[in-house]
């Protein structure tokens, strides 16, 4: 975790770097624990989770692209205020777009679309990356982060929908005898399932790190023998 934070915002070269970072190494939800409000509130079904993830990705791409194009014009002292104004504009666009495309999704997401403005991830990316880098890498970075966020929301949404309603994307998975575990659709279920995902994620990381250090020890051992 500590080295993940250390290399945060470091120079990246190829496009697949951005996606690997956003989805896995620097995942905004599982690694940095940012953007908790929509993560917990909108994940009671897979469909809502996906829509929220895509809406946030759109805001990230538009605002990061604009901010990085204007980065030389924005004075350092008022950069946060400028970022927020640009982000709020992008969010207003999304708000009206979603309303025009699908009114049911709009009703399901409710107040959480305007609240993308105060999602820490959306303000964190310009501060850490787009404010200092050219347009194309900034957009790739925004895409990677946005997909990572959508991925995390979908993971959480899957657990909550399958256990809480016995369906996936609205299709029933189990027979009629299945008693849905409604708790998972309610607020406490959100907290518990995120806790479980974080535990699973960090234990997997610990296991990987242990394996790596064991492998390194094996590689080092012969060299030591030769040296002695």
């Amino acid at each position, binding site marked *: 975790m500590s080295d993940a934070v250390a290399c945060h915002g470091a120079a990246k070269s190829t496009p697949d770097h951005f996606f690997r970072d956003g989805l896995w190494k620097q995942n905004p939800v599982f690694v940095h*624990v*940012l*953007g*908790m*409000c929509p*993560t*917990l*509130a909108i994940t009671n079904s897979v469909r809502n989770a996906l829509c929220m993830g895509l809406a946030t990705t759109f805001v990230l791409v538009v605002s990061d692209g604009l901010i990085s194009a204007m980065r030389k014009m924005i004075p350092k002292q008022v950069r946060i*205020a400028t970022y*927020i*104004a640009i982000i*709020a*504009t992008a*969010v*207003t666009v999304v*708000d*009206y777009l979603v309303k025009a495309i699908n009114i049911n999704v709009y009703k399901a997401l409710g*107040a959480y679309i*305007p*609240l993308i*403005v*105060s*999602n*820490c991830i959306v*303000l964190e990316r310009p501060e850490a990356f787009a404010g200092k880098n050219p347009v194309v890498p900034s957009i790739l970075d925004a895409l990677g982060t946005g997909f990572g966020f959508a991925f995390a929301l979908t993971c959480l949404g899957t657990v909550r929908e399958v256990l809480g309603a016995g369906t996936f994307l609205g299709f029933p998975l189990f027979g009629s005898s299945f008693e849905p575990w409604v708790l998972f659709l*309610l*607020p*406490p*279920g*959100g*907290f*518990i399932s*995120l*806790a479980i995902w*974080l*535990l699973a994620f*960090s*234990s997997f990381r*610990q296991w990987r790190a242990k394996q790596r250090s064991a492998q390194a020890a094996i590689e080092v051992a012969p060299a030591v023998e030769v040296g002695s």
Partner: protein
Amino acid sequence: MNDTLTHVFLDAFLINNFVLCVFLGMCSFLGISGKFSTAWRMGVSVMFVITVSSVLSYAMNLLLVGVHAEYLRIITYIIIIAATVQLTEMFIKKMSPALFRELGVYLPLITTNCAVLAVPLFQTSRGYNLVQSTVFAVAASGGYCLALVLLSMVRERVDLSDVSSLAKGTALTLVLAAILSLAFMGFAGMGNGA
């Protein structure tokens, strides 16, 4: 019936507690709840910001509706909030420099606390009048403060016990929050009887 002041207050304070039932202001809820002394001060600062910005947003919304510029709502609200946070910062710096140092970076971060933005948005969409908006703002931010203080007390106790290194940190805090949230579900019945 649903709009009496008592109902508005109880609904925002307990039944639909902003943090534990509607999931607003999660970042600071998980971030600043480590110590009781910081938690309640943060809660009170947020209460002040929410109440002031709610009243200002109510006035601003009247103006926006007057000139048919409702699409500017989100931008206007966030600017009002940023200005209120700035004001609070200057106020606290003047009145209590010690508190100012203690809150540190979390004070400017109130701007990106979604509970603060949600209050003006909710009061607009529910069509509250000025008195209802103010009561709503006080109740919602009071609920935030309550949740923050409760969690910080629990966390101070849990710090004394031996926990597996894997679960330490956010995962453990989330489990504690889940238990608190379960307790708050008990208030859900109050809404139907009123």
